[in-house]
């Protein structure tokens, strides 16, 4: 039920109702545009460079790290989807 009167008690309760999300989650979500741009770069590189593509197919995480990219779980999953691995 919506609150009809704001008392100190229910305002305090509502303030407590939204604790912060873990910092790492927020940072990752905030960096989505950059992460997406980096994925586009990796896919473009894999399309243009057969050797890099071969390395990605062989061992995605290792090839990414060797090329200077981070290889966190979400990025790897998304890249596998995009590269149809």
């Amino acid at each position, binding site marked *: 039920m919506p609150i009809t009167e704001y008392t100190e008690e229910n305002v305090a309760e509502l303030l407590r109702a*939204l604790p*912060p*999300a873990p910092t790492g989650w927020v940072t*990752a*979500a*905030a960096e*989505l545009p950059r992460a997406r741009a980096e994925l586009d770069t990796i896919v473009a590189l894999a399309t243009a460079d057969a050797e890099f593509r071969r390395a990605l197919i062989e061992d995605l995480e290792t090839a990414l790290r060797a090329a200077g990219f981070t290889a966190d779980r*979400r990025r790897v999953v998304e890249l596998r989807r995009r590269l149809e691995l």
Partner: protein
Amino acid sequence: MGFTTVMDVESTDGELVALCRAGDERAWATLVERYSRYVYAIAVQGFRLPEPDAEDVFQDAFARAFERLDSLRDDDAFRPWLAQMTRRLCIDICRRRRDEGESPEVDVEDPSEELERLDEALAVRDALGRLSGDCREILDRFFTQDESYRTIGEALELPAGTIASRISRCLGRLREDLEGRKAVVLES
């Protein structure tokens, strides 16, 4: 903490969405900061998801929102649109867990009453953003970060004995803001 930039406090969701479409990364980060607690609360409090599932929902909700910004018909409706996507993701994951037999007791009914409460909490959070910096900080530290009077006093270089009265005064201002806005809504 949040509440750090002029953009954060002053820009409407519609303005931020328009900036995001134009490739403004800061605008996107502001939207994420503005709604991170809300999306987190829907997953963890509304649907009582465990942390790993809540993290998946959290990231997927923002990723979908980012990818589908062009399909948002009303830029100012970003919040309900994001909430709807988050709810669907929560329901999907609850059903998946139930079907996998991991959480057969999971109730996948949409907990609408709890979600209504979170909407109210977000309105209070918005009002908090309109208070002075001192009030925002002291209320946030006390109510959402659960800091003691002593910790707050040390951080803000205030005697611990004055913290309670400051909290009460700031809470009063927050109530005034909320009551004022409610009156405007009722009159219009």
